[in-house]
């Protein structure tokens, strides 16, 4: 991945309340459409954003009860990638302790949840999780077109 300029940056702050992830997904759509990402790729971004927001809402316990999102269009000179940072000021977690979900096990397990991070990783080009006791930031990027990075 080459370094490239931030062409546009939009920030969104959401309350940690049911269905607010949809607002994030619409803003993501607007940014992705602006850079003329293809509809199928936009849809994948939308789903990843929804999952990351739900995680912040469900697991962070952030005292400000807000999800802070930054959408950045990267590229130089033309838009190449959409980067989305989803931050909560919550309790954080240990990614190494998160078990990789497995369908054969989940189909019989009591707890069928635990798919969010795997889905995010499968749908985005790059995903980085920064987490600690001051909170969590998930940074994910998707290129405008398949094959670009």
């Amino acid at each position: 991945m080459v370094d490239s300029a931030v062409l546009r940056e939009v920030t969104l702050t959401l309350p940690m309340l049911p269905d607010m992830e949809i607002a994030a997904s619409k803003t993501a759509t607007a940014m992705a459409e602006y850079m003329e990402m293809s509809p199928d790729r936009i849809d994948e971004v939308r789903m990843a954003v929804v999952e990351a927001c739900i995680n912040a809402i469900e697991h962070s316990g952030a005292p400000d009860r807000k999800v802070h999102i930054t959408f950045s269009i990267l590229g130089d000179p033309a838009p190449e990638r959409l980067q989305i940072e989803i931050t909560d000021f919550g309790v954080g977690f240990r990614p190494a302790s998160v078990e990789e979900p497995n369908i054969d096990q989940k189909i019989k397990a009591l707890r069928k949840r635990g798919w969010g991070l795997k889905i995010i990783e499968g749908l985005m080009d790059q995903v980085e999780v920064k987490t600690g006791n001051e909170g969590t930031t998930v940074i994910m990027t998707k290129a405008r077109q398949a094959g670009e990075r």
Partner: protein
Amino acid sequence: MTEALKVRLEQHGSMAVIYTDGYINNQGGEEIARVAYEAMEGGARTLLLNLMGTKIVNSIGISILIEIIEKMLEVDGKLAFCCLTPTIEKTFNIMGLTQYAEIFPDEEQAVGSLSPA
């Protein structure tokens, strides 16, 4: 708020089709489960989920669908999907869900393949 998922059931003997319209989140998943279990109690052993009207799902909703699959397998039944958006299909592939639930492009092909011969 946000319009709740609408679910419609069509049952023909041991085959039932569930049509969804809207966001499959926690509540949406629960609503599908409610209708699915109703169909199973009514004798359905093959359940087709037609997601034509669903453009977005989340992983909590999908977990509930996995629960339905489990319940179907327990009674030697099966669950299949049709009319998925490319992203939902990709997500089910990422999860490996397709090992336990077949995916069909449309209802006609699903019914053709699932109907007892």
